[in-house]
């Protein structure tokens, strides 16, 4: 469908010092619907800095999983523009099928959203690991099992027991850890976790989060964590990108983004979060629901229907991402900004960007 693309593709995160391990540029993924092709991900640029955990935060249907699957060139939609470059791999959309197969698993580990239920119920875990090794042409299957045992111990599981277990003999938290082992056993250096803790209780969640952090650091991974839960991202991620209706609307170092969110959507998301600290009376539910593929506006800002700061320009022009004005404490806040925007250093060393007409930008 004809959508005016932003005139210039903005650099993802203006952090020029270290080259990113994964570079997404101007990525658009569209799905066929009854009324033509609709983009689930629209002109997204995102860098995953090496050795860091990047959090991708968004509501159901915001396009997070579509974006993550595109990193494997495995999205069920059609990639209509853009590129995904991965260190040591190149452009994943240009890879021949055999190479792509190798890359999935050997370079990029993916823990699926339903990884809880994505084990084969008819085979013990050990046999499935061997299947994985064989399908990747692994010659040294003993070595593979040895690595798997090491990884299983790393994630706090009894390796001898788990390898002979069927899926139903493992708890939710254990399956999730097995999923992480499967993703890493072929020595992937990029790890993608899609909703790693949904359906886990708080104690299992806490231990899975701790394991992710530990494995990430020990193996010097580049990690992408996808979640709708601000808590998971806030606890885990070094940098956070907020996604709304297929766009990244705000991105920056997690601490700065949570303390001084600039985009009205991020602010609303934080104000609607049930938390253990703070006054429950000050929490504000999000009004209405996010747009889905069919109700995404054809032009203008995607968030304007729910936005307290919406202006006429928001209906006509889609805001492009820009670094918010002022590297220091914020002085000029848009009117009616609310208490969540208490001034702070929003432009961290790693770069900060926001896509909103109401946030004064450095580049007009």
């Amino acid at each position, binding site marked *: 469908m004809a959508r005016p693309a932003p005139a210039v593709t903005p650099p993802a995160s203006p952090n020029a010092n270290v080259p990113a391990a994964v570079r997404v540029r101007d990525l658009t993924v569209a799905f066929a619907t009854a009324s033509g092709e609709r983009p689930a991900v629209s002109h997204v640029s995102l860098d995953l800095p090496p050795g860091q955990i990047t959090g991708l935060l968004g509501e159901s249907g915001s396009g997070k999983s579509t974006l993550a699957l595109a990193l494997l060139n495995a999205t069920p939609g059609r990639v209509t523009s853009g590129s995904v470059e991965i260190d040591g791999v190149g452009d994943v959309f240009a890879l021949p099928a055999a190479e792509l197969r190798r890359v999935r698993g050997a370079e990029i580990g993916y823990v699926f959203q339903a990884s809880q239920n994505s084990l084969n119920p008819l085979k013990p875990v050990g046999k499935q690991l061997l299947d994985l090794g064989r399908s990747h042409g692994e010659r040294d299957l003993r070595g593979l099992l040895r690595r798997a045992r090491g990884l299983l111990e790393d994630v706090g599981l009894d390796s001898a027991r788990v390898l002979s277990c069927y899926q139903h003999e493992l708890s939710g938290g254990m399956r999730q850890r097995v999923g992480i082992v499967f993703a890493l056993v072929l020595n992937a250096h990029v790890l993608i976790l899609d909703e790693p803790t949904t359906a886990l209780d708080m104690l299992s969640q806490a231990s899975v989060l701790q394991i992710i952090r530990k494995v990430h650091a020990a193996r010097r991974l580049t990690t992408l964590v996808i979640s709708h839960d601000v808590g998971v991202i806030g606890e885990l991620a070094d940098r956070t990108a907020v996604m709304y209706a297929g766009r990244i609307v705000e991105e920056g170092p997690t601490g700065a983004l949570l303390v001084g969110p600039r985009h009205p959507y991020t602010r609303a998301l934080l104000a609607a979060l049930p*938390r253990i600290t703070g006054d429950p009376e000050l929490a504000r539910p*999000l009004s209405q629901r996010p747009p889905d593929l069919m109700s995404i506006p054809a032009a203008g800002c995607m968030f304007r229907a729910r936005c307290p700061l919406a202006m006429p320009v928001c209906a006509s022009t889609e805001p492009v991402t820009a670094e918010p004005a002022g590297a220091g404490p914020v002085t000029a806040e848009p009117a009616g900004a609310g208490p969540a925007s208490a001034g702070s250093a929003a432009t961290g060393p790693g770069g900060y960007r926001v896509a909103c007409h109401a946030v004064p930008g450095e580049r007009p």
Partner: protein
Amino acid sequence: MIEGRGLTRTFPARGGLLGRDPVRALRGVDFTIPDRGAVSFIGESGCGKTTLGRILCGLEDFDGGELIIDGQPLSRLRPRQRETYFRRIQMIHQDPYSALNPTRTVEGILGAPLALRARQRGENDGWVRRRRAELLELVGLDPGFALSRYPHMLSGGMRQRVVIARALTVDPEVLVADEAVSMIDVSLRLGILRLLRDLRERLGVSVLFITHDVATARYLGPGGELYVIYRGQVVEHGRTDTVIGAPVHPYTQCLLAAIPVLAGIEQPGPQRPVPLGALDERAEPPGCLFEPRCPFAAPGCRSERPVLGQVGETAQEHACLYPERRAVVPVSAG
């Protein structure tokens, strides 16, 4: 008012060659759900909180103790008589994606129980239509939008609102919400929690909230009570604010310390205890049930099983031989 007195439930062991020990899901639980109250049961998966909720709704039997509804002990009633009591207690299920019939519109989903209710009360079809619209508005849905929709056309939050509206069709006095927000996007949870709170205020229903996420229990309105359950035993009980603000049982402390901390806004409490190992539903330690996993266990914990009581200078009841306040709750940064 609903009271549980010493409720027990034991599930016979399934499978296994050597004859496994039965699982003791509830071991003598006392609780009170006052009218218009907000009572939360918290604990990890497998602690027995769901069994308790199911017993309250009549979906599960108890094998010891007594359930007393408005002064009427249930075990003295015949099954037929029990039904009228259980009508007053309605469950809101965890998964709004599977709790609604996918082949019926919202109109049909609400219409069937309302038609039954109309017959009981001698009302006509007009009443059903009015009541249907009224209930949808009460749960924050626009009848014009929702009535003709099938469940798959609604978001998780909207479906959960339909589930709540359906529970309200029979004029319940108690809503049992078993993990009612855990499968909904975090962004929409507050809306559902606010709705439950509003229903308390506007309809005078009481809410029994079953959850593993302690933070959500804070959003049900004033006067909440919290029961922390571990392996079928209440290990700490008190006002929600008190228990969250100054927990004394190590299990409660582990649950609170497990809450993710928002970088920048919050920081973890000075102590962040983690339970040792995973829950083993079959282990029967002679002493405290939590002792095998307790990071603060003392030798005495292995021989004596503590009972719930108000020992030491605590504002809440607890079942710990060595209760101690520890700063485990995340605190606001800065």
